[in-house]
């Protein structure tokens, strides 16, 4: 591509190149620069290692926090039936009326399931569990009310929605009052959302640190190659040509840093696994510690690559334009 000498076109390699071929050669050049910059990192292993480890650790922390949130959510999702609503039926209502109530409630769109516990069932259960056993036989009549257990649909299991549903159900004429033990659920949910939000904040801070680390590493490497950049500019290299190797370096840092983070998370989980299963055993829970799955690994890598690209992009655009060949 000759700007000044049109007749030169004929002798340079750009002759008769179709757009497709030009794009092809451009891609080949960019890929070749990518391989070269990987080779260059390989030639300075110590410096590259340090940066990669710092990046790896900076990415490990948010990944770990993410795993904590994920596992806590897994645990708390087992507490769904906590949002069960107990409706105590008025004493004046007969068995028949209670059953129609249960049938009616089952038709509510907010209700997933309805279970009727009659007075006698409740009393049997109470005898069995409480240990008062025979003492209860002395009662002249059953003091327990009929109870309808209502399980709301998913949407109505959240504390606020469940409360609204409770208010609605209490308006039923057969219902004495209803009960929803949601206070502890509210607390748990509040804690969870606090945890999630702090994780997001900490992750954002650490990810900005990653951008800055990569940006600074690339800046140092640009300063180190000042002479080379000047010469490249003198012999007619475009900005794209000069920028690409540095961008690649940032991307490689991202990829390797992301892998380091993945490996350290995996190691940490492996280390914690036996301790966790012991705790789960004590609580008679079938809880299994969840690690990063393939999708999440891909997201982690993609994020790391994006950060690597972002950091090097910022540095390259900020610092390379200042390096001009001012001495002929």
């Amino acid at each position: 591509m000759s700007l000044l000498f049109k007749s030169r076109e004929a002798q340079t390699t750009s002759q008769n190149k179709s757009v497709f071929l030009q794009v092809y050669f451009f891609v080949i050049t960019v890929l070749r620069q990518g391989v070269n910059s990987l080779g260059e990192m390989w030639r300075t292993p110590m410096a590259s290692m340090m940066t990669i480890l710092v990046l790896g650790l900076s990415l490990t922390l948010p990944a770990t926090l993410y795993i904590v949130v994920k596992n806590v959510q897994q645990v708390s999702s087992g507490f769904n039936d906590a949002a069960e609503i107990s409706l105590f039926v008025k004493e004046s209502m007969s068995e028949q009326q209670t059953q129609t109530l249960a049938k009616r409630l089952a038709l509510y769109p907010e209700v997933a399931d309805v279970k009727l516990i009659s007075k006698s069932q409740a009393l049997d259960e109470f005898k069995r569990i409480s240990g008062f056993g025979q003492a209860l036989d002395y009662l002249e009549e059953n003091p327990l009310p009929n109870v309808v257990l209502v399980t709301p649909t998913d949407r109505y299991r959240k504390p606020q929605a469940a409360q609204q549903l409770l208010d609605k159900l209490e308006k039923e004429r057969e219902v004495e009052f209803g009960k929803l033990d949601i206070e502890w659920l509210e607390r748990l949910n509040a804690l969870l959302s606090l945890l999630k939000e702090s994780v997001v904040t900490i992750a954002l801070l650490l990810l900005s640190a990653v951008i800055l680390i990569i940006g600074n590493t690339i800046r140092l490497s640009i300063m180190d190659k000042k002479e080379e950049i000047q010469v490249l500019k003198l012999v007619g290299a475009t900005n794209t040509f000069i920028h690409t190797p540095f961008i690649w370096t940032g991307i490689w840092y991202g990829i390797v840093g992301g892998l380091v983070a993945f490996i350290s998370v995996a190691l940490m989980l492996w280390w914690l696994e036996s301790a966790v299963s012991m705790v789960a055993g004590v609580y008679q829970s079938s809880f299994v510690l969840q690690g990063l799955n393939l999708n999440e690994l891909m997201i982690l890598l993609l994020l790391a690559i994006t950060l690597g690209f972002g950091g090097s992009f910022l540095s390259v655009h900020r610092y390379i334009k200042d390096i001009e060949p001012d001495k002929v």
Partner: protein
Amino acid sequence: MIKFDQVSKTYPGGHRALEKVSFELGNGELAFLTGHSGAGKSTLLKLISVMERPSAGHVFINGVDLNGVSNRQIPFVRRDIGIIFQNHRLLERYNVFDNVALPLVIEGMHHKHIAKRVHAALDKVGLLDKVRCQPSTLSGGEQQRVGIARAIVNSPPLLLADEPTGNLDPELSMEILKLFEDFNRHGTAVLIATHDLGLIARMKYRSLTLNHGRMSQDPLMEGGL
């Protein structure tokens, strides 16, 4: 090939490096650019390679006004100009082959064409046997010739040289100048900035003299009139 039309260059801070310089270098011409140090030789070369922009006036290469060249287009201007430096500016990280191949790699030329051209360029400067050496293992004269090979490897129609013989003894200087003469015979326009007046005297080429930023009378041009 090169035409300066009333070109002035004032650096920030008020230093006037060039004042209303006008001259013309024909196609395939070889000329010397002389003057005391600080006379504006380097500035003049920088204006041709668009490292600096003129404060006033126009610089033309092959009829194209460089004022109309955008910053993005500068690399493509430089690909048409071979530039040779006093301190040769080779990249120490690469060997001779890679240094000379640089302008071709930048153009995205295919590998096998690159090898052919690099060998041809090194052959011209007589360093074909040093193709795999590191620049630092070469003598000053050899390094300078590698720099020249890099400048001519993509056969630019215009060669600029800034004090190409500055660090060399007279014998080596003569060799380098012979190289330039050779390229010139093949049609390349050459402009050599030097303060080595003895060298110029031994060769009968046109010489442009700068004095405190002004172009002195050009004896050859006068003779032509």
